[in-house]
């Protein structure tokens, strides 16, 4: 495998909280342009892993490399500046700001001009069918719209390379889910954005991702296409509670 194609490398990542080993030596690689699924039962360490990729936590052991450069231990804003955006399982939006203001934050921190940022925001809000709400306070949106806003907000970053999503389809209405899937496919094809998506929605992950990584009890237990991993005994065990 050509090293240059690897956008993200997890190398024996261990994360210990007190006496709990949330990640126990996770290793896998994501190639540029991929839409990778990250699945596993509750408590298998998916969110902990994402929090280490995006700098919310530092890894206890091991390395996380982005385009060949070690990123674990860097601050979240530094990691964001390198072209990695993320979403959170429970949508984190700026409730007291307007929808448009939410969109402008990642563009401003990147130093985009007002004009550029506003145009970009208008386009993305149009796409997400949130345009008519742009000057409303964000707290007036619905839960599904929070998630949608959170996702399109990440697309505001120009030159976005890796988008890490934590349960983007959880608790959202079918129509919003459709928009989210469409946006992922579009950004992947048009802008070659790489995605790492944590989700419990097997059908959606199966249709979006050519490859999935399965975690259980903090460790990687399988990798391959959804079809392949679904037949691996350890995976069945993990999901059915062996």
């Amino acid at each position, binding site marked *: 495998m050509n090293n240059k194609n690897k956008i993200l490398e997890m190398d024996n990542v261990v994360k210990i909280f007190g006496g709990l080993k949330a990640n126990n030596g996770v290793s896998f690689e994501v190639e540029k342009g991929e839409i990778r699924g990250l699945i596993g039962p509750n408590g298998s360490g998916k969110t902990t892993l994402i929090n280490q990729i995006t700098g919310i936590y530092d890894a206890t052991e091991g390395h996380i490399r982005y385009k060949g450069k070690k990123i674990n231990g860097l*601050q979240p804003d530094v990691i964001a500046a390198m072209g990695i*955006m993320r979403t959170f399982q429970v949508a984190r939006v700026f409730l*007291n700001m307007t929808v448009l*203001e939410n969109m402008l*934050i990642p563009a401003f*921190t990147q130093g985009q001009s007002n004009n550029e940022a506003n145009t970009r925001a208008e386009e993305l809000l149009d796409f997400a069918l949130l345009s008519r709400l742009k000057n409303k*306070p964000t707290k007036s949106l619905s839960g599904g719209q929070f998630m949608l806003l959170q996702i399109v907000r990440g697309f505001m*970053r120009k030159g976005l390379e890796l988008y890490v999503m934590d349960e983007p389809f959880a608790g959202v209405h079918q129509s919003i889910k459709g928009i989210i899937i469409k946006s992922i496919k579009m950004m992947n094809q048009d802008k070659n954005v790489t995605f790492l998506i944590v989700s419990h929605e097997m059908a959606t992950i199966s249709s979006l991702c050519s490859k999935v990584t399965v975690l259980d009890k903090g460790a990687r237990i399988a990798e391959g296409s959804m079809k392949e991993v679904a037949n691996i005994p350890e995976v069945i065990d993990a999901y059915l509670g062996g």
Partner: protein
Amino acid sequence: MNLFHTKYLVFLILVLFAAFLPMYIGEYWQYVLTIAFFYAILAASWNLLSGYTGLFSLAHHAFGMIGAYTSTLLMAKAGIPFWMSIPAGILLTMLISSLMGIMCLRVSGLYLALITWAFAEVARNYFRLHYTFTGGDRGLESSLLFGTIQPTPYYYLFLGLLIATIILIVLIMRSRIGYYLKAIRDDSIAARSMGVNIVRYKIFAFAVSSGLAGMAGAFYGHSIGLISPIMGDFNEMAMIIIFVVIGGIRTMPGPIIGAIAVRILMELLRAQSEVRILILSLLVIIIMRFFNGGLMELYRQIKQWINKDKNGGTSAYHEIETPKQGES
């Protein structure tokens, strides 16, 4: 856009009104308003830190005190002139508050409040106990900026300082930094993940807001001629919070309206000094219960009620609409 013009126009009219007011009121009320402007600066700058940025500090009054003592002590002990001692006071408060900001980076809410309160107590007790240097509880005489106790020049001085403070805070809040500060308050983890350097902007908020408090304190000392550790009393901090909350936290005019209105009210009730704290407390309870956005919320509700009457009822969506401040 229209709303903006109206806002600026109202601001201009109020400034003009305040500028001509001393011709029609006596020295006593000029003095009262000077003190009110001093508190308005403290309230507006505390609102920048604790309202907009969400860093609930209980040391704001202490920074006012530090500014006052720094400038007064530099003049009294080292013979340094005003134009150097006052900026020195401002710089020192900015420096100390930046250090406090760094120390408090990982704490928020109640813990931040407790740390800042403890710092304020340390500062107050330092000025009390090191009395050979600071004058202790007896206070310290401060040379008067205009060499007179006649209040008119000080009235204009503090009016000018208040206007400068308002303009500075408006400029900050309308800039990108303002967006970052609001984002940090709403969700600091999301803000960091969106690329906001929260270390830099939290320290910025501490330094600017405390620097304004230090400035107000330094000028205050040189205006009333005597400073004492009472400036660092917790009651002073409580008053700042009351001004902001009564006026309307996270609004630009709220803290200023709150400070001036409450100071005037307290002055009117001076004869009944026993009951005035009772009335003030009742006012806080009533406002918190019925308009927890303060007087600005009351104003918004009245405006909405008038509009509703005019339009024959608006949809629920319009009710949550806030003034379109970000639109430009």
